[in-house]
């Protein structure tokens, strides 16, 4: 039952073959069983989940289900604010933070009747590509426990791939949904910037952050997207257009489709085993009737530099709110217990010290490094040389994608230059870690959508995902290619040996 996709689970609930409570208990049992090996969850909300499940069953009996996904157990990356439930962003600085409100997407899923199993692991403040930067320890890849699940939505991808939930939500700022999906053999959708509202989601880089589903199949992602996408008055960057039912884009062949292959994604640095899987994937696409077109994206060379200058600048600004004053880890409490007799009015409490101590104690290395870099690139004297320059290169990147995507339906590329690497292998070399994002960061820079869909495995059994890139608001085109490909490749029932 727990290895079923969302689409299949919906049928079982509808037919009465399983109740939401039974299903939730099965998933909670699975979580207990595999968590010691995976460490995908930061918080497991067992009581809340069972309560929500029972309420769902009552609704279903009365014929009053809230939506097609009423009663479905899911997990949320621990950057989605959940009212009354600890939300940590995998950081010591938010270790005990209990949000006073639900984010928009949290609310939308709650109002659809979904069951929250818990909050899953991520790199601290979603900064990272391996989930090793978490204050709560790394998550392990279910396909090989010595390896990373990818990041930053490593907890989400590992949980879905190990059947610890029916689906999960992640965030993608530079590849954080797609890369872990590629490493864990799940479907991961990075939406068009602005399609899914960001209100109530911990920010990393406000002009790059997106929210999206990580699922067991392509149609599952469409079902979830139907529930989370759409305008939100609390997010001024959220789309105002009417949206389609994404399930209508499922296809079985690709006759008439033009698929662009950008040569810059296939050169030096690409692991030969990944190349083999992607070549086979291209052959599959051709056999489905698609026309393969060679294209070029020369700005790819500058993608990482552009991305990291901009993203770290925005991050340094976003992380300034963690100051030990309104919420989060604070040295203020410690100061409270300083000698009250000699300093009853607290006049010796030093504001600057509170900022310094709270932030220094609360942030991990990558967060500190990010803040430092962003502070430098935005500082007077360096703003033009770094930030402004990168912002201008961003315009060129965006225009280039628009031009190339106006001539083809989608682009197809690898997601990552290599499959899941070993835990600890890249942690001490930030630049090497950044360069690993070569194939994903340009997409966020341009704002376009892209999906990672499972394409195959290496000789050692490590998952390899294929990236399908669409034009702005072109999720439909991506779903068409992904659904037909998934059917032909037929590996969605392959599970890790846990």
């Amino acid at each position: 039952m727990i290895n079923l996709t969302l689409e299949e689970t919906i049928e079982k609930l509808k037919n009465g073959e399983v109740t939401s409570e039974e299903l939730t208990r099965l998933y909670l049992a699975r979580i207990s069983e595999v968590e010691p090996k995976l460490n995908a969850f930061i918080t497991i909300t067992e009581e809340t989940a069972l309560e929500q499940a029972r309420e769902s069953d009552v609704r279903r009996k009365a014929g009053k289900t809230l939506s097609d996904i009423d009663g479905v157990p899911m997990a949320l990356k621990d950057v989605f604010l959940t009212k009354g439930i600890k939300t940590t962003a995998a950081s010591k600085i938010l270790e005990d933070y209990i949000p006073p409100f639900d984010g928009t997407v949290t609310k939308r899923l709650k109002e659809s009747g979904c069951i929250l199993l818990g909050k899953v692991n991520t790199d601290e403040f979603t900064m990272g590509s391996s989930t090793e930067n978490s204050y709560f320890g790394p998550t392990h890849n279910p396909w090989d426990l010595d390896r990373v699940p990818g990041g930053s939505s490593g907890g989400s991808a590992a949980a879905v791939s190990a059947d610890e939930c029916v689906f999960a939500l992640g965030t993608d700022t530079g590849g954080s949904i797609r890369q872990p999906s590629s490493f864990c053999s799940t479907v991961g959708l990075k939406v068009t910037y602005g399609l899914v509202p960001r209100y109530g989601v911990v920010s990393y880089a406000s002009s790059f952050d997106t929210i999206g589903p990580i699922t067991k199949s392509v149609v599952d992602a469409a079902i979830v997207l139907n529930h989370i996408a759409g305008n939100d008055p609390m997010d001024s960057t959220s789309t105002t257009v009417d949206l389609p039912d994404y399930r209508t884009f499922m296809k079985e062949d690709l006759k008439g489709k033009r698929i662009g292959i950008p040569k810059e994604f296939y050169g030096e640095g690409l692991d030969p085993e990944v190349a083999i899987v992607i070549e086979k994937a291209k052959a599959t696409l051709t056999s489905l009737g698609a026309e393969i077109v060679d294209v070029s994206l020369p700005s790819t060379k500058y993608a990482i530099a552009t991305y990291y200058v901009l993203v770290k600048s925005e991050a340094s600004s976003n992380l300034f709110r963690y100051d030990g004053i309104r919420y989060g880890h604070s040295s203020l409490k410690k100061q409270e217990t300083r000698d009250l007799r000699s300093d009853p009015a607290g006049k010796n409490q030093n504001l600057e010290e509170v900022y310094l101590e709270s932030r220094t104690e609360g942030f991990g290395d990558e967060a500190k490094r990010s803040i430092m870099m962003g502070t430098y690139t935005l500082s007077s004297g360096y703003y033009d040389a770094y930030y402004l320059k990168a912002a201008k290169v961003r315009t060129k990147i965006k225009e280039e994608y628009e031009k190339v995507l106006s001539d083809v339906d989608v682009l197809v590329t690898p997601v990552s230059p290599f499959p899941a690497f070993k835990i600890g292998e890249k942690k001490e070399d930030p630049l090497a870690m950044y360069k690993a994002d070569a194939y994903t960061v340009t997409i966020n820079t341009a704002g376009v959508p892209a999906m990672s869909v499972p394409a195959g495995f290496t000789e050692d059994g490590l998952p390899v995902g294929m990236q399908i890139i669409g034009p702005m608001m072109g999720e439909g085109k991506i779903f068409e290619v992904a659904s037909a490909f998934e059917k032909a490749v037929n590996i969605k029932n392959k599970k890790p040996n846990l």
Partner: protein
Amino acid sequence: MAKLTQKDVENIAKLAKLDLNEAEKEKFANQLSGVLEYAELLNEVDITGVEPTAQVTGMTDVTRSDQVSSEKVDQQDIQVNAPTFEKGAFKVPHVFK
């Protein structure tokens, strides 16, 4: 331009409100220098006459009507996260001495 000295790192840390020890200053100086040097790749790009992109939606001046939201938040829910709270207010150190 790219090689950061310990003094540079100290200045940045001060702006960023972070307190680093000697080992961290050296580590970050090296790591950040590496990344910033890599960023100089951007000097190769011709950006004459190009406008910067602040965000990719193309939307401008998004507004909503000036009406009070119906969403309520309980003081209790906010208080639980406050480092120090007294008589319904956040207690903070002096800003001015």
